[in-house]
């Protein structure tokens, strides 16, 4: 439950690049609570693949531009 994830994301920078979209706006558009967006941004929660696609779609970017998976060797 508390193992660190290798999944990182660019949601914060994407929000700012998209008219400084608020976490609440993004949450409404994705259909989740603001607390979940906060947890994802802070790397405390890894969304399902479907939610990850929905987030990427809000910003009109490919999935791997919104989410990245670090190489375990790094």
């Amino acid at each position, binding site marked *: *439950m*508390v*193992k*660190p*994830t*290798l*999944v990182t994301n660019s949601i914060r920078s994407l929000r700012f690049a998209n008219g400084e979209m608020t976490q609440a706006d993004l949450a409404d558009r994705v*259909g*989740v*609570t603001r*607390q*979940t967006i906060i*947890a994802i941004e802070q*790397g*405390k*929660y*890894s*969304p*399902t693949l479907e*939610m990850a696609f929905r987030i990427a779609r809000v910003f009109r970017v490919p999935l791997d531009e919104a989410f990245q998976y670090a190489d375990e060797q790094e």
Partner: protein
Amino acid sequence: MTFLEKSNWVVLVVALPTLLVYVAVVAPQVLGKPIAEVSWVQPMIFAIVGFIVANVLGNVVAAASNPSEADKNDERDREIDHVGERVGNWLIIAGSIAALVLAMTRADHFWIANAIFLGGIAGALLSSVTKIAAYHGSFQRW
């Protein structure tokens, strides 16, 4: 804080005093007189009914404090709820197994009822603590 997290705080805030008051009422009797003479049925009924009523009232207050959030939950809430319930269920199962063993060994009704009661309350406490910890810490599936 989401409504479901508030709801877990309600369980924690209600279950802990319920358990402490029940133990404070019954434990001195257990130490001071034979088990058959201990008055435990009424305190246990009060504790169970009190826990349910206080829990319902607490949830109503939590919902009223932010009505627009009261019916909102998402997959993270559901996953945290699922994990918390699974952890809490271990204590409920432990209480039930203890009750079974006590029944098989013809223990007094007092011990059988209290094994189930304490397992249930402890399970609710552990479940809500687990969920609150998951809300505030890291919760990963990947």
